[in-house]
């Protein structure tokens, strides 16, 4: 810029001005994908969105004005949201789509609400803006420039029939649409069922903080997509794309998928971020990450959070599913579990680890009860019986209770034991057994309290 390179210069011209210029190929497909991402996100402001490639997005906001408290707050919200996504935009508001686009290009920031102000606002815009329209040929523009028309107002003053005769009819049609004389219907954008958004990082990184920063942008987009559908997610997938060079040389995967389970239907981005942070902090990255991708499907309709008019405290912060998901994200699924009795007479087999269900916390949830033995059972069971010396007879308080058989589990399952309640020196009660098999050893198997 400082050396005089400007938009519209040819490649050779630009290189002549600044020989060390780094040229980047324009990726139209990527631009369109980005525009689609932004359109998905913008669903949180209005359901009526129209893509205007390559670089424009049209939102019909008339109906949303009241919800957001007026034009200025809505524009601020859009600007702040885009900032969070990592984009800057030129906003303009006008009663017709074309006028809005031209104003955004030529006079960004104009907020025009009534059609009455349209002629005045459009009049000073330069004719160069028309060059971006597909329907207008370069020859039409040359012709108009030759006549001496510089701005929109100049063209409006020219006789329409004369322009039409000189192959500039397309210009008249465009101007009529912009001024609201002709209707200008647009196809509405339909947000995709399956959300997928990719964010290339500015530089490959293996720092969790940087990944999380990138993730915030992706999540902001996801949030808009969910808002537009008034839906929530139960899980989503974060894909880490590793540096390509590294993955070929060092032989690890080119990408890694992290499935993030939210524990409940949610559209709360703070929760999304919290759980992703836990997953990321646990993950060892084999190589620097080049790009992040967020994938989500199966959004389920979700009622907005219920708020109690009288009791604000009770309705917030009590989310058993979140605790479960957080703990499992950091410690692993196996480390967080529930217990359940299992119908088996052998002590080691009489319980199971079960998957905790947040839904089971509700009062209506039925409790499965297995048949429980009537004889006393200890509160703690040792994972392996521990050999002990033969206890003194006066320390044996209750028993024996014979527990035997289990041939169906092979040799390991086959037991034959006489269980006793015994007292230790410090008066605590323990569960011991005497093996009825060959060496007749005594074993400690549990504590009673």
């Amino acid at each position, binding site marked *: 810029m400082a050396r005089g390179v400007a938009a519209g210069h040819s490649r050779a011209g630009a290189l002549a001005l600044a020989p060390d210029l780094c040229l980047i190929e324009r990726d139209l497909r990527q631009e369109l994908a980005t525009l689609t991402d932004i359109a998905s996100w913008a669903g949180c402001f209005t359901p009526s969105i129209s893509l205007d490639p390559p670089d424009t997005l049209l939102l019909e906001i008339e109906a949303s004005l009241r919800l957001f408290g007026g034009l200025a707050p809505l524009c601020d919200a859009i600007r702040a949201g885009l900032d969070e996504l990592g984009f800057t935009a030129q906003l303009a508001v006008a009663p017709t789509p074309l006028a809005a686009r031209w104003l955004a290009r030529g006079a960004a920031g104009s907020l025009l609400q009534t059609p009455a102000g349209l002629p005045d606002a459009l009049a000073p815009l330069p004719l160069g803006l028309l060059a971006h329209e597909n329907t207008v040929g370069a020859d039409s523009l040359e012709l108009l420039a030759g006549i001496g028309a510089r701005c929109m107002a100049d063209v409006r003053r020219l006789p329409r029939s004369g322009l039409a005769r000189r192959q500039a009819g397309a210009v008249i049609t465009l101007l009529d649409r912009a001024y609201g004389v002709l209707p200008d219907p647009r196809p509405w954008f339909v947000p995709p069922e399956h959300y997928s958004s990719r964010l290339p990082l500015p530089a490959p990184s293996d720092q969790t903080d940087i990944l999380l920063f990138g993730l915030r942008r992706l999540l902001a987009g996801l949030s808009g997509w969910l808002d537009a559908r008034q839906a929530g997610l139960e899980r989503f997938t974060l894909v880490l794309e590793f540096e390509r060079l590294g993955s070929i040389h060092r032989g690890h995967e080119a990408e890694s998928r992290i499935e993030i389970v939210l524990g409940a239907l949610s559209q709360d981005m703070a929760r999304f971020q919290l759980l992703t942070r836990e997953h990321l902090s646990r993950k060892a990255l084999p190589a620097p990450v080049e790009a992040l991708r967020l994938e989500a499907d199966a959004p389920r309709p979700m009622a907005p959070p219920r708020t109690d008019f009288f009791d604000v405290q009770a309705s917030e*912060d*009590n*989310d*058993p599913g*979140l*605790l*479960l998901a*957080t*703990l499992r994200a*950091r*410690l692993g699924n196996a*480390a*967080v*579990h*529930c*217990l*359940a*009795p*299992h119908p088996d007479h052998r*002590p080691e087999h*009489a*319980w*199971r*680890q*079960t998957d*905790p*269900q947040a839904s*089971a*916390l*509700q*009062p209506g*949830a039925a*409790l499965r*009860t*297995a048949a*429980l*033995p*009537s004889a*006393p*059972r*200890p*509160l*703690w*069971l*040792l*994972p392996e019986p521990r050999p002990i010396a033969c206890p003194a007879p006066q320390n044996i*308080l*209750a028993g024996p209770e014979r527990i035997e058989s289990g041939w169906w589990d092979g040799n390991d399952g086959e037991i034959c034991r006489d269980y006793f*309640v015994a*007292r*230790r020196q*410090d*008066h*605590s*009660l*323990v569960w011991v057994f005497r093996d009825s098999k060959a060496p007749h050893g005594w074993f400690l198997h*549990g*504590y*009673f*309290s």
Partner: protein
Amino acid sequence: MAALATLASHAPSSLDHLIWRGDRLATATAPGLPTGHALLDAALPGGGWPVGALTELLVPHAGVGELGLLLPVLARTPAGRWAVCIAPPGQPYAPALAAAGVPLERLLMVQAESPAHARWAARQALNSHSCGVILLWLADADMGALRRLQLAAEESATTLILIRPASAASQPSPAVLRVALASCSGGLELRILKRRGPQLAGPLGIDLPWPGGAPRPGRATHPPRPTAASPQSSIHALVRPLPARPGPASLHAGAQ
């Protein structure tokens, strides 16, 4: 000074919890979580395990009776809330817990690789506001870690019970209640090392429930009278008489 004393004695009951006189139990702002043992409830400010504060149980070894003591609290976990056991040293036995009436589907077992993980899990459980009671087994912890747990407990209004080895009794702790456990014939002997109130004269004898409601085997017909006041409590002028111990039947009824 005299005027101040008069003011204190005539203070309306709404200010009671702000003024704590050393010879009385502090009036807790929030009622405690009933322990299920009448004798223990009577000795604790608030009438139960403190809510929104750290409690320490000091045990000489695992299985001395800590789980038996806490069974009534676990059994009374309200619907919609978890009871969380973090880093238990052994395997709590599901059939016995179920027989004691503990709602197993609300009892969350969390295994932690390290004490740091265990403390992290406890803080998450506190912050989630979705737990009735949190049991945390912690072998060693420095003052800073305990203080952070105490602060987290204060903010969340949840009962956090820390189970630590008896050797930790000599270390300072920010816990508002510290109880040393020892087993005795018939149940547990509790020494309250620290509470918001005067020192207790002697240990409390607690009968632990026995499955089936039968008397606990090995229970002496005449329980030994509580020993004379322990040395550290003798410095206190005011010694509360130990309430008479109720019979085992009534305690069992209360615990079920």
